């Protein structure tokens, strides 16, 4: 499988997904993210999918699963850079991802995440 880039920015784990992932590769990536986040230092995870033009139902559901998993572990999650076509496709699939935060770009995503984490801490 392709290497999955992971960056730690303080207490935030940033995972940019650079290419379309299919089936097992996607599941492996999902597992890797969750394992990586399984670290008391990590308070929030930002998954950047701005490079994706297409998200099929499989990947859509996987994202949802990852988010649920991370939240179950007490981490804040944010999806970054959902493209307009992807947003439309997800809605058509009925995947509103309502419980997941979203942001245009990493900048605002990190801001939003910090805000949430601080709120949780306070």
């Amino acid at each position: 499988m392709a290497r999955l880039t992971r960056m730690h920015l303080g207490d935030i784990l940033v995972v940019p997904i650079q290419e379309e992932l299919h089936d097992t590769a996607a599941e492996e990536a999902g597992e890797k993210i969750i394992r990586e986040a399984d670290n008391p230092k990590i308070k929030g995870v930002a998954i950047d999918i701005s490079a994706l033009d297409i998200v099929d139902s499989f990947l859509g559901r996987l994202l949802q699963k990852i988010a649920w998993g991370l939240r179950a572990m007490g981490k804040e999650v944010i999806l970054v850079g959902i493209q307009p076509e992807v947003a439309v496709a997800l809605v058509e699939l009925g995947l509103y991802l309502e419980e997941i935060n979203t942001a245009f770009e990493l900048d605002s995503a990190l801001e939003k995440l910090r805000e949430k984490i601080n709120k949780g801490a306070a």
Partner: protein
Amino acid sequence: MAQKNNKKEIEKLRRENEEYKKLIEEMSEGFAYLEEDLTFSFSNPACDSAFGVPEGKLMGRKLQDFLSPESFKEVKKNIKTSEKKKSVFEIEVNAADGETRYLLTRSNPRFDEKGKFVGSFVFFYDITKRIKLEENLIFERGLLNALLDYIPDWIYFKDKGSRFLEVSKSKAEGTGLKRDEFKGKTDFDFFSEEEAKVMRADEEKIMKTGESVVDKVQKIKLPDGKEKWLSATKVPFYDKYGNVMGTLGITRDVTRLKTLELEKQEKIEAQKEELIELSTPVIDVWDGVLTVPILGSLDSERASKISEALLTQIVEKRAEVAIIDISGISAVDSAVADRLIRTAKAVRLVGAEAILTGVGVEIAQTIADLGIDMENLKTMSTLKDGLRYVISRKKELRGEWR
């Protein structure tokens, strides 16, 4: 002994006479003897009934009474002739019971030593049924021919093997063939193999299932090279036992209509496109705040165009809030509400907030009646409220961030 023989002879003759008489009485053909002036002096029951009179009442009546004056002249001549060809002829009888009957008549005239006509044994054979049938056939054939000659639509009959049995004049036109020269030809003689194969397949299916093809419109290249839009209707036809005999069809040239329709459709598409462009103005009302006023009706195509335009703008302008104003929308039903909600959810996914404004009393009621929960969607009654909310929130946020 001689006397006894004589008596026996007489007895034999008498019996024979009886038998002949019986034969004549029971014959299904009419038989009569006409005197010199063509008065009936003898007739059998079949003859009486052919002339429509009660049994035995034909005697003493004249043949002339049953014929039209014109035909009587001819008949008179024919009855008196012994020439084989002319002694068999048809007469049209106005029978005494009011019916018109056609009788095939054979005359066996009798002459005296001087060659003068003295009378005739005449046989009548009722052929009314056959004549009527023939008349009907001729009449129907005439109707069919008129149909095939004058209707501009192509009409054709094909046998089980899809070989032409009969075609209309219009069908033959342009092929260089005459109507009767079509017999035995197939579509393969006139169309491309590909097209002919489709036609043949259609016909086989029709004959197999008994289901007609009605108004099948397709573009066909004609034998003369022109391309035309044709509307074809094909049905199976059967013999009197219900066995399929082939197919018959009517094809109509609908090129003019179809061209118009296509042009119209194109125009409508173009206008629709233009209208959509015009009707999805995404307005940049404030820093990071976009507004889309939706006017008129919202179908799925338009809804997706609006979504697309709005989402693209949001990402491009890095907008934080998108206000969708529906105060100008003509009607809200469950489909429209669903589309609005989907748009709002897509807005959230790309990272902005969607606010639905212009939800008046009626629309609110409709939405409630439809049982749609606006869930996490922020709604406001007027665009003004929406803007006020956004601006105050921006101030608040700025205050927080400062």
